[in-house]
């Protein structure tokens, strides 16, 4: 366990440095004078001019040579100072918290919903086999073929416009959460029900599963004792890989539903050249990745304490 945590910490340091440097280099490579961009975001499109840009440049010391700026940034990072947003002047840590809170809420809700959809469907199609299996798999293929935003648009048209059950966009109440979470859940469930089904199929066909019944345990008891954990193992491992791509889906969904999460915030910060926020958000995502993977490893270890730690 200690070794795992040490490895993960090391990875975290690598990721933080790498992600930070990558964003730093990329943002410096972006075309256009940063001062103008920042001024446009600060003062609004009607009020940006060269004077505003000069003001910004002066205040933020944007004319530092890149290596010096990098050095400052690295030193700050070592002291866990993420700085202030260039646009709003708010501490980055606050905005990142705010955004991450919303994204996590959406992600957790989406994940739970998708588990509610994918697990029963996956088990059911593994249990009953064809023709139900083929129908369900075909259906999930079709949903997978739809980009997340198409799915979101369809749900919007049906549930928000046609029936007017849920709000179109925004946040703040549980009702606002439903459509974005559902979009995320459906697109994610279309992938994960397959994993559940494959895993279940393998377990149901495995010789230990048969042996348990041969020993005299009933089908239901066998499923309880030997099915659940063994099926869960690859599903949880898969989750670890897919969590990042889930964040990808979140970027689109947040944009579509005006959800003030980290993906949306990052996209906006990129447009505004708000480097500290970009770095903060990217770092948070990277750290989150390492954290979630550690969590997945621990859960996997809890389910399956055999051998050493997975790498």
């Amino acid at each position, binding site marked *: 366990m200690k070794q795992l945590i040490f490895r993960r910490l090391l990875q975290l340091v690598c990721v933080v440095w790498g992600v930070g440097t990558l964003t730093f280099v990329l943002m410096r490579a972006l075309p256009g004078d940063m001062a103008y961009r920042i001024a446009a975001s600060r003062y609004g499109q009607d009020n940006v001019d060269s004077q505003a840009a000069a003001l910004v440049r002066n205040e933020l010391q944007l004319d530092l040579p890149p290596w010096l700026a990098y050095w400052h940034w690295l030193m700050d990072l070592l002291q866990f100072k993420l700085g202030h947003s260039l646009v709003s002047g708010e501490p980055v840590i606050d905005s990142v918290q705010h955004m991450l809170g919303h994204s996590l809420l959406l992600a957790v809700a989406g994940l739970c919903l998708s588990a509610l959809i994918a697990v029963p469907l996956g088990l059911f199609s593994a249990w009953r086999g064809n023709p139900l299996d083929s129908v369900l798999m075909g259906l999930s293929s079709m949903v997978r073929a739809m980009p997340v935003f198409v799915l979101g648009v369809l749900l919007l048209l049906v549930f928000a416009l046609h029936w007017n059950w849920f709000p179109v966009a925004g946040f703040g109440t549980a009702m606002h959460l439903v459509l974005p979470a559902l979009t995320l859940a459906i697109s994610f469930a279309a992938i994960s029900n397959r994993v559940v089904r494959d895993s279940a199929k393998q377990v149901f066909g495995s010789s*230990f599963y048969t042996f348990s019944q*041969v020993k005299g345990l009933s089908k239901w008891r066998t499923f309880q*004792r030997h099915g659940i954990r063994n099926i869960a*193992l690859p599903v949880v491992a898969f989750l670890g890989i897919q969590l990042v791509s889930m964040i990808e889906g979140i970027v689109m969904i947040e944009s579509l539903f005006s959800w003030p999460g980290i993906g949306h915030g990052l996209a906006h910060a990129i447009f505004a050249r708000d480097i500290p926020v970009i770095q903060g958000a990217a770092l948070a995502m990277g750290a989150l990745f390492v954290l979630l993977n550690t969590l997945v490893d621990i859960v996997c270890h809890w*389910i399956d304490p055999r051998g050493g730690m997975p790498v």
Partner: protein
Amino acid sequence: MTILLKLTNVAVYAGDSCLLEPISLSLVQGRPLTILGQTGSGKSLLAQAVMGLLPEELALQGEIEVLGESMTCDERRALWGTKLVMLPQEPWNALDPLMKGVDQVQEVYRYVHGKHQREAMALAQADLQYVGLAHSGAKRPSQLSGGMAQRLAIAAATAGGASLILADEPTKGLDASRRLDIVRLLQTRSAMGGLLTITHDVAIARQLGGDILVIKAGRLVEQGDAQTVLSHPEGEYTQALLGAEPRVWKEASFSVPLPESPEVVLNVEKLSIERGGKSLFNDLSFQVKQGEVVGIVGESGCGKSSLGDALLGLLPVASGRISRLIPAAQPYQWLKLYQDPPSAVTSSVTLGKLLEDLVGLHGIDRGRIAPMMDKLSLPEVILERSCHGVSGGELQRFAILRALLLNPVFLFADEPTSRLDPITAKEVTTLLFSLARETKCAVLLVSHDADLVRKTCDQVIAL
């Protein structure tokens, strides 16, 4: 004497083709019944048919009577655990990889007999003690050796109290020394009921005694009292099967004698090898001469294969010196024959193409191929197939062919016949050694079969 199991003209079909021809047998209380036959002879289908575990696409014919009653598949399934049980072929796969050993026994008492958790636990512990696993209950299957896993599986399977036990290859994948333990355990566990064992291992059949059925390619070839059949086999097939046991081989069955005043191929001085920080052996010294067959024996895990790999330079040595003493020999003339032929030959192209690659690379005289294939009794057609299309024996002989074409000076044969059935194994071993002797190639043989080594080797190194 109650008849526990009676089969009348039981046959298994896949569509139109018959996988198991009609067979009749009966198993009586207290007298074990053994079905002997090679892998793929259809004997496992019989056990599956009895249990009601045949895959859906296979059709069953004939009548199966359990405990005196003719039963349908579902009725037999209802007897699982309490009356009828089958031991799995490969215990590692048959045990839940995530569950502690003792729990896998305990759950039978709990859920089949409805006992309380504490009582079930105590009973399970007692069972484990009985099979010699008193201290391994908290381990998971992957932490157990093959023999321990099989003992655990036997404890779990018999906890339900079934009187009729079917054991399908109960010793598959186990070391020879462990096999007889398992058989003894099976015998005691089934003393009160009936035991139907399916095996390819003559030694096990001999140990179990009782009645025996010999099956070849889905057909019954010989039947009778085990003692009688095994000592005086009548069928040709049974004779061949018995004759393939290294125990009964004639000493030094090679036609070619050792060359006179052979040169030393390899000199090993004070060799030590470590693996994963653990020392396998220390200060080993020996010599290998041209045409000589050197055997290495020892427990599994003692470093037999590592020694061979180290000699070939595939593994680093901790200390000591290995000197190759034939200066003219090229690196590619020091070769290895692998335990599992299919994993040692790529399936991406045909065998002919592979041979062609070799000929092209080293400029080998094509004229040598045909006679060599004759000697190895390899038919021409296998060259058009990939390694999946040929049998294990043919593939191992093909591997030998490839090796010999390079005129090797040293060949490390790592259990070259352990995955082959006994008759084929005997053929391959004989061929390999006589051809090696002919071409003055030294062979280092690793085997777990002490009989084989004793009968074939000029020098034996025990680790």
